[in-house]
């Protein structure tokens, strides 16, 4: 079949689905193309957290706060249960060195507008049972939340379709049509689709699409192993991460990381979903596109989790899986047109924040494409910020 539309979005994850929703909501004719099926990439293999506390103060945290605001009435807007809960978040602090770094981090977060405080372990255990008494302390922010990423995607798509959007699953993009430097359309396994604008929201696979127009995108898959427990009655009252999750993520001052955890980039991230499964993550490893879990990864994560929250040692593990976070050198996503080919728009590279930043990404992309500007300085997220590097 060969057909025409305003915009083609590539990628059926939370980012592609969100962009399709926000564009079609503003009247654009959008066709979403997904190689396999919804959430087959990292969106289906993540820990569902909307965690503001892990965002670097500055633009990163600003985006997260804006995104969190958008989540508030998203469920009503999409008229679909996305299991969004502002459950609050805690960062567990194991050593005095970590406390020193966290105090600095929390101070700057507050300056950027995040409501967060540091508690001693006694108060920490009051709001979450089962914590290890040897912890030095914990932070707490009522603003952190989580959602069900699968339901989120379904919600976006269902609503987008009511605005006339179309979705093609099991449809792989095999080529990009351009004419004198301008996007003309895209070739897929189900025929060609003509369009003016092509949004590359393929996450860790965005470089594969980029190569089709000779682009070398600085996005690398960074594997995160996650462990899932059986469904248990409510136990994890707030989303929990360990201080070295933040250091592993931003490769900050690694002095207090012991060797083995540092090598695997193990940082604890625990949350319990609506159904009762507890997610226990995660590692941060460069392992290409391999999504297997390793015995080393599983052991390290569980040993670390059991040490910090002994209360969960009797839970059963029923599954382990791994997602590929689209990693960029500065931890920020790449959002914007590229100079090489007019109409080729990138929206990928969210590392571990795809869920948290999915609404705000949809807003920024739709505004940049339709209005040409958005509420933040577009240059901060454009691919060109890496150009002086290459």
């Amino acid at each position, binding site marked *: 079949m060969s057909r025409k539309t305003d915009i083609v979005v590539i990628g059926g994850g939370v980012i592609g689905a969100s962009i399709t929703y926000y564009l079609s909501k503003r009247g654009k004719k959008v066709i979403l193309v997904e190689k396999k099926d919804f959430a087959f990439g990292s969106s289906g293999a993540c820990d569902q957290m909307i965690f503001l506390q892990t965002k670097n103060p500055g633009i990163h945290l600003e985006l997260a706060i804006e995104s969190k605001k958008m989540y508030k009435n998203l469920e009503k807007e999409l008229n679909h249960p996305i299991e969004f809960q502002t459950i609050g978040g805690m960062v567990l602090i194991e050593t005095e060195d970590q406390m020193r770094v966290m105090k600095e981090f929390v101070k700057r977060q507050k300056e950027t507008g995040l409501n967060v405080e540091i508690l001693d372990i006694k108060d920490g255990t009051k709001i979450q049972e089962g914590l290890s008494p040897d912890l030095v302390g914990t932070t707490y922010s009522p603003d952190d939340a989580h959602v069900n990423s699968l339901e989120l995607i379904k919600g976006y798509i269902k609503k987008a379709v009511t605005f006339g959007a179309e979705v093609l699953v099991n449809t792989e993009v095999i080529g990009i049509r351009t004419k004198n430097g301008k996007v003309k359309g895209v070739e897929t396994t189900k025929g060609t689709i003509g369009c003016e604008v092509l949004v590359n929201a393929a996450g860790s696979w965005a470089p594969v699409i980029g190569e089709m127009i000779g682009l070398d995108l600085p996005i690398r898959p960074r594997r995160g192993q996650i462990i899932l427990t059986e469904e248990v009655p409510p136990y994890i009252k707030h989303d929990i991460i360990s201080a070295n999750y933040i250091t592993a993520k931003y490769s900050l001052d690694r002095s207090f990381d*012991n060797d*083995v955890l540092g090598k695997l980039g193990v940082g604890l991230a625990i949350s319990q979903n609506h159904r009762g499964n507890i997610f226990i993550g995660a590692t941060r490893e460069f392992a290409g596109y391999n999504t*297997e879990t*390793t*015995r080393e990864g599983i*052991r*390290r994560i569980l*040993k670390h989790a059991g040490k910090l929250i002994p209360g969960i040692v009797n839970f059963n593990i029923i599954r382990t899986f791994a997602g590929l976070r689209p990693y960029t050198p500065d931890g920020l996503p790449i959002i914007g047109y590229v100079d090489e080919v007019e109409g080729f728009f990138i929206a990928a590279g969210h590392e571990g924040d795809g869920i948290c930043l999915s609404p705000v990404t949809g807003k920024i992309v739709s505004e940049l494409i339709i209005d040409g500007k958005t509420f933040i300085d577009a240059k901060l997220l454009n691919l060109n910020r890496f150009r002086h590097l290459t």
Partner: protein
Amino acid sequence: MGEEIIKKSQVVVIGAGPAGLCAAIEARKAGATVLVLDENDRPGGQLFKQIHKFFGSGKHWAGLRGFRIGENLLKEAGQLGVKILLNAEVYGIFDDMTVGYIRNGVEKAIKGERIIIATGGIENALPFPGGTLPGVMGAGGVQTMVNIHRVLPGKKILMVGSGNVGVIVSYQLMQAGAEVVGIVEAAGRVRAYEVHLNKIKRAGVPIYTSHVVKEAIGKDEVEGAIIARVDDNLNIIEGSEKHLDVDCLCIAVGLNPQIELPYIAGCKFSYIPERGGYIPVFDENMETSVKGIYVAGDVAGIEEASIAMEEGRLAGIACAGSLGLYDKETEEKLKKEVKKILRAMRTKHDSRIIHSLTGIPSNDRFEKGPVAVIECKEEIPCNPCESACVFGAIKVGEPITNPPVLFEEKCTGCGRCIPKCPGMAIFLIHKNYTDKTSLIKFPYEYLPVPEKGGLVSCVNRNGEIISRGRIIDIKASKKDDGTKIIAMEIPKEYFNDVRGIQIRGDGI
């Protein structure tokens, strides 16, 4: 949290069932260090709930009860120094041939130069309305509950599926004192070997072919079942429904290989419905597409346990060979021998060729005196009757799937063959026991055992009562391992119709 040193073993076998134990024994015979992991608290896998006598070739413990074979395999494995870790639940195989397992509440790992996966098969679930009610159970679970834990899952049981498992478990349920209300089979004919089916028919169990379970009924547990006739493409024929008063449904609609470990180990698969579905691809050495990982037994395709044992031996030998523990031609010789047995067990020209009954004596022979009657005409890989007869009156020959042939002139009527037949298909008939009566000797494995001299109701091949009979003698020798031989006097006109005494109902 320093680095952990992982133990090593040349061969790691996962699953201590018939295939796993045989593989371990063969690998150990070649001198390999072998560790067997099994998640149960006793090895032997399905063997220990198989209380019936096994088919197979005389040399290989054929005619022994499943759990006896398990005990023998364990003894041999022990003597050879095979290490068996029980209560060891393997949860994963990782890239570097590391097997992760949990034992006594602690996670451990062992690295194998070769891994033999022998995890067997698992029951097919059957979706039908009411199929999740308590009282609907898989046949394997029923067998475990009855034969190992000695608890009946119900008193009046409907068996769903007429494969060997369904028919054998029905027989074992009756042995344990439950009533099997019937066997339902969607196909037009019973799938099990006829010798197994005959045991059920002569116990009077109705067989509903071309029938399915339409619904299990009950408020919170099974209180009854509705079965219905189906046409050729399995659509229910309206109005053919029939209510059965049952309190338990036993599902025996086939097994499928437990492919979880081969799958996560990265093996390639092919889809073979006749062998249960997805099967790891393996070569003539039972090695899968992943170098160093072998499969054996039901995980490599659902077949009889006797075939699983031979596949286990083949994998064990090939594995040892690949470790350089055999020189090439010893390895080839050993493998050739096992492959010959496997081929013999699998030769089925057409699995439904029903030879003329070659085990039935002529009328003149009946007149002359007591003679054996062998009602076994299918191609079954089994020949214990041949080795049981000291007078050479029974011949199976090669391949062992040939039905037995009776040389009536050589048969002296001694009856030694009766308890040896795993299918309980051999009877001894002395037509002219007296001028008006005949004598039949038949195998009997139920309770209560009738009294000597007592009067009983005799049944024909379909379990219908056709006459009265008198118990003349009951023989129960230890080497017959529970199979009693009952000699019964019957009216001469039914000399070749009576096949046993009434089991169900008020007959006795």
